[in-house]
């Protein structure tokens, strides 16, 4: 597919990696959104998901491990015209940057956080991640991890996130629809994207997911928190895909109600010089 969002930078993901499906969905969603590359900024941390800004023709900032959310928050606050998308992994976002996830939900900037959740550390070669199941074996956890996994959707739900969805890299068309819906949501929208790691995760494979995932029915009421909690807790037998919870709530700038919003255009604040001096006289 020719797309203004394509670039010719060589992709370093493994053949068969779930990230290809996510990248495909992202480009499709951006095409559908009608945005130009210059109007979009993709921010990431470190990990396989963190490479996303390099593989797409938009503005981008590949920052530090775990720090994509605060970096993106600075971008959105100072240049609110940009569509800001954050791509990260489960280690990056739920481990190293867990604190920023909590507070980004509280801040509620109009940004889109897409987590490539493969339940394993890929870039550092196969250690247990915060979403790895108990018993996941690795070089560091030869007897299997004893840590209980985070259910990140529960965390988002308990912090009143206004847009919670779950996608699957194996269904890029459905994922693109979810992303598009996230873009149009006013506030912090969060999609946990299930993604097989073909090299290091021998349990949660493509076929493992394929057997379990199902799309939420049209009749599902995503505004009902009780139903949402039920869906969030589904995992062992069936895993729901789609918008799990959505409700309107005031986003950052509505809450801040700035008297004199700054904006990116260079301006000389000297007009305030005398007024400020008066404060100290």
């Amino acid at each position, binding site marked *: 597919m020719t797309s203004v969002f394509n670039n010719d930078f060589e992709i370093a993901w493994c053949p068969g990696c779930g990230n290809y499906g996510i990248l495909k969905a992202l480009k499709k969603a951006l095409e559908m959104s009608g945005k130009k590359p210059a109007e979009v900024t993709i921010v990431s941390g470190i990990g396989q998901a963190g490479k996303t800004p390099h593989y797409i023709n938009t503005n981008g900032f590949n920052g530090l491990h775990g720090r994509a959310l605060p970096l993106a928050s600075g971008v959105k606050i100072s240049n609110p015209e940009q569509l800001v998308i954050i791509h990260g992994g489960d280690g990056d976002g739920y481990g190293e940057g867990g604190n920023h996830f909590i507070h980004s939900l509280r801040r509620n900037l109009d940004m889109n956080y897409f987590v490539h959740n493969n339940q394993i550390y890929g870039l550092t070669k196969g250690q247990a991640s915060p979403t790895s199941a108990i018993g996941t074996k690795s070089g560091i956890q030869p007897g299997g991890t004893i840590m209980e996994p985070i259910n990140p959707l529960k965390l988002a739900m308990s912090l009143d996130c206004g847009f919670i969805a779950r996608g699957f890299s194996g269904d890029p068309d459905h994922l693109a629809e979810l992303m598009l819906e996230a873009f149009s949501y006013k506030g912090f929208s969060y999609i946990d994207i299930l993604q097989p790691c073909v090299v290091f995760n021998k349990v949660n494979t493509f076929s493992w997911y394929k057997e379990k995932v199902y799309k939420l029915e049209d009749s599902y009421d995503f505004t009902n928190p009780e139903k949402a909690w039920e869906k969030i807790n589904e995992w062992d037998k069936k895993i729901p895909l789609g918008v799990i919870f959505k409700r309107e709530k005031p986003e950052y700038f509505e809450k801040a109600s700035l008297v004199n919003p*700054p904006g990116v255009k260079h301006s000389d*604040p000297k007009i*305030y010089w005398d007024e400020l001096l008066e404060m100290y006289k």
Partner: protein
Amino acid sequence: MISGAAGQGIDTVAGILEEGLFKAGFHVFSNKDYMSRVRGGNNFIQIRFASDEVYSHSNKFDYVIPLDTVAYNENKALLNQTPFIMDLSLKTEDHKNILAENFKLMAKEAGNEKAITSSLIGYLWKLYGLDLDILEETINRTFSEKLAEVNISACRKGYEAPSVENQIQSKGTSKDFIFINGNQAIAFGALMAGCKFYSAYPMTPSTSVMNELALYAEKYPIIVEQAEDEIAAINMAIGSSFAGVRSMTGTSGGGFSLMVEGLGLAGISETPLVIVDSQRPGPATGFATRTAQGDLSFVLTASQGEFPRVVLAPKDQEDCFSLSFKAFDIADKYQVPVFIMTDQYLSDARKTIEAFDPDDFINKSYLAELNNIPDYSYERYKLNESGISPRIYPGQYDNQIVLQDSYEHDEKGHDTESAFFGKEMMDKRMKKLNGFEKDIMEPEILGIPYSEIMIVSWGSTYGSLKEAVKKLNDEDINIFALHFNYIWPLPQKHLEKFSSRVKKIITVEHNYTGQLAKLIKQETGISVTDKITGYDGRQMSPEEIYTRLKEVL
């Protein structure tokens, strides 16, 4: 000096007194000494005023005002030389220097016992023979209507109490002066430099920069964000700068420890950034509310790897404004992180200074203008002679994108593991400051240059040192100081010019090892012969520096 417990209103009363003296036309300098607690303990504020410029605090007092028994006992050693103004209830002995009145009763009659501090300063005001109207106006501005009434009444009762008075001639007018502390001046300079975003996590003694900017944000175009931690704070500021606005973060040493990885990100991604480090004694939590200059070596080398940075250390409140303004210009021009290193003393101390003149400060934009280049061909890290690539922000041109990277990268901003870009990008970054010589300020010379004894010093020690050197010069002791406010890259011309002719070089610093002295040695090979260091968390007074200099001369 006013001394009392946290929660007794010492800040408020000292504020009234300082502003009243400022309004009366004096140059005022106030130094805050406070404990890390909300209630109790012993805090004091030293207020010094004169008809001419006052550069620092001093340990000599006209009067001491203890507000409670702890404060009285803490300062008792001064009683033989200094009159104490205090409430009768605190008087446990007879001493000619105790000026005790029933201030509590005066306040009670005025309507509230808590207004006792107003009675005390009314009394003091009379002893100085000053115009009561000015003090009343200041009280009026400080409190809400009802409280102002009570406090003015309490103040009048205090004013009427003493039978004797000194006669002090006021300088008359202070209309071209302002009265400001170091952190307020940094905030003011930042706003005037076009800073539109400040993110920080509260940490004493840097928090008042955030408070001041938050106050500005109520009216002026700046956003202040309280981050969840210092890691988030610096990353937000970097994101904001990348997005196109001038940004700053601020903290103290402990918070800066958390910011170090972010500093490296600003370095390799070449994002302009201003960082305020208001130093306090460390390591770890150290002395939360005290002063130090112990972070210099740390700030100079913080982060893994190598990249250019600039370190500035304002010498006084006026310099806090100038260097804060300048820091943004340097950060933008060279696309590097710039530090403003202050400390608790300078952050909190208020000083009368001349109002800044807008004509002295030019606000320039360094964003690039692109001429019809092909779509999506812009390269954020274009290699060129200066190493400073043309910088645009996302959305500045609707047919270009901007890509920044924390990995080593190619000219476009893409990850690379190529040896070629590994070398070229490092060379590019490291040569960015080659032209900085034009912006550099050599250290200020205090005293009689070409004397045989030279002092080196930096940052907030300026005021005390200036007085100490003058006193020694007045006694015909030939001595001078090179006082640095541009620290890194280290200005070397004055050092080279003066050091060969001197017999002694003495460093005066608020740290244990003499970190400026180590830097000078490292960069120039010049060794200091003596060190005067302070590391008890208290700013050396002019008297202390004078005495300690005499010991080593």
